[in-house]
């Protein structure tokens, strides 16, 4: 069957296009869909890799390998087996595991005391949550995303955020609330 990208579909390549659809289009050789996936997921993939590998160089390698794998294997994706985000997460995780195995450094000594750090299951769950939240952030309008970034991850007070952005304090609060509502919508199922 011949696959072609009809011109009428181009406007649908905006925010409403699902991950599954983009993966399928990528599998059919649609580079616009691939680029869209990259823009959506590059930061979550890089963040996940950085969190797991703790090294920017290897995280960059993992990011590149992830999207090389996406390009190579997108045609194997089947939406009947699940949504696109977990599939992409799996591809990224495999690329990161490969980077982990590629390390030549000897493993660290086994500590005498039990570690208080999160165990593998907790880490995996935390990684998946961060993946979802960071992916959801990419769906926000830019003006909401910048308010969230400054309000939550800088040392600025809300008044200072307002000053930094040159907007009234009330607008900062309005945008924060709107952004949280949008994120809640995007994270449906994550909020139990």
């Amino acid at each position, binding site marked *: *069957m*011949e*696959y*072609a*990208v009809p011109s009428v579909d181009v406007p649908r390549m905006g925010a409403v296009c699902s991950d599954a659809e983009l993966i399928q289009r990528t599998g059919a*050789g*649609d*580079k616009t869909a*691939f*680029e869209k996936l*990259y823009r959506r997921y*590059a*930061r*979550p993939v*890089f963040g996940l890799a*950085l969190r797991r590998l703790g*090294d*920017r*160089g*290897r*995280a*960059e*390698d993992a*990011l*590149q*390998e992830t*999207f*090389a794998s996406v*390009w*190579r294997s997108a*045609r194997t994706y089947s939406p009947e087996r699940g949504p696109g985000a977990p599939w992409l997460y799996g591809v990224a995780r495999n690329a990161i595991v*490969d*980077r982990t195995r*590629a*390390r*030549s*450094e000897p493993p660290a000594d086994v500590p005498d005391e039990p570690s208080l750090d999160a165990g593998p299951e907790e880490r995996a769950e*935390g990684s998946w*949550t*961060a993946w979802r*939240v*960071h992916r959801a*952030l990419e769906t926000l309008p830019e003006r909401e995303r910048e308010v*969230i*970034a400054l*309000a*939550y*991850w800088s*040392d600025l*007070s*809300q008044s200072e955020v307002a000053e930094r952005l040159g907007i009234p304090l009330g607008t900062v*609060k*309005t945008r924060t*609330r709107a952004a*949280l*509502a949008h*994120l*809640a919508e995007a994270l449906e199922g*994550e*909020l139990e």
Partner: protein
Amino acid sequence: MTRPFREWVDTDGLSAEEVARLERVHELLLEVGPPAELPPRLAQPPAPAGARVIPFPARHRGVVALVAAAAVAAAAFGGGYAAGTSHGMHVTQVVALQGAPAQLASLRVGSSDAAGNTPMELTVKGLPMREHGYYELFVIEKGKPSYPCTGFRMTGSQTTVRFTVPYELRPGTQLAVTFVQRGKVKWPGRIVMRSV
């Protein structure tokens, strides 16, 4: 700095259920922290070289994709998939390799001499120039890089190296390019390209 939800978010006019939803998002944002900043060079998506619509029936997909990819790689470097001549070498086969979408390579294999030396010419496009490491071409055996062919560094966006190996390359042999990073990725390195 602490971020008490009630002070941070205006909840006037919201139902208790909606307030609880927003508060959970508020907690999640504090829990997961900021997303990582992409290095500038990775901010833009890689251009998928050779990405195009290739109509073919599903049962022939692998074969057609192989031929198409080989043709794309060969065409990208001004060569041909069929036998020809390159720098005085009689080319008997061309193997295409692909990594990330913009990363392609074409290996031209020449005729072996009486002693069994086989000349080859590898042209690689799109791999990053790396200061602390090098690339290496391998023959894949049992899914792993086994027989080294040659090592090289990228000198620009496209690099060509010529070398000989003391064996013949059977048609269909799988090849891979690995990256070996000193002190971080041990030999034979991690695979960055595979034959298609």
